[in-house]
């Protein structure tokens, strides 16, 4: 099981801050995970309707869409950051 966490409007659209999922074997990268999540229901489709905008982190480090998800304990999806 892999922990997924969501922030800001990604969290609001999906409707929950986190969940545990069993990743299918054909989901190898962050981009593939986003695509797979988008197919899980309209709330996910809404969150990932513009997948280029959604950023990701694996185990609390920023990653690119082609980053492998194998071995990840916690994968986060969130909009571009607006702190500071």
């Amino acid at each position, binding site marked *: 099981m892999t922990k997924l966490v969501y*922030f*800001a409007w990604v969290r609001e659209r999906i409707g929950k801050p986190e969940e545990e999922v069993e990743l299918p074997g054909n989901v190898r990268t962050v981009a593939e995970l986003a695509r797979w999540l988008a197919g899980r229901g309209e709330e996910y489709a809404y969150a990932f309707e513009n997948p280029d905008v959604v950023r990701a*982190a694996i185990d609390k480090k920023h990653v690119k869409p082609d980053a492998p998800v194998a071995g990840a304990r916690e994968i*986060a999806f969130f909009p*571009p950051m*607006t*702190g*500071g």
Partner: protein
Amino acid sequence: MVVPVIRIQAEDFDAAAEIARLTAGRADVGAVVTFTGLCRDEGGTLAALELEHYPGMAEEELERVAAEALRRWPLTGVTAIHRYGKIAPGGNIVLVVTASAHRTAAFEAGEFLMDYLKTRAPFWKKEHSVDGTSGDWVEAKSDDDKAAQRWAEPRP
């Protein structure tokens, strides 16, 4: 060895106390730069900003940004404090303090920290309007990306 001061907190901060922390009892600091980011009321339309963050990653990312600043500039101290939760107009959001023997290092490192923090630290701002509606999430600015990109090449 310089140990960065990194804090993610709901409480307010005190710039003078943080300057003192980097200068008290030592005489090798010639320059201290602080940057304070505050909540604006956007012409009276904003009631508050709500700052969401990714606990754990926020600290780690600020640690990484501070470590990178220490690698690039000869700093005697570096501090980054970011608040979360609801912040009213006029309230403090973020504080960065850099100390060095020389002013150029302190200024450049302060700008670097803010530029990097803006585009890398996992914080998101939601606007609450004075008319009672909970408004939109603040959109990231391409200007901020550009500002961060100017540090892409290592500097002397």
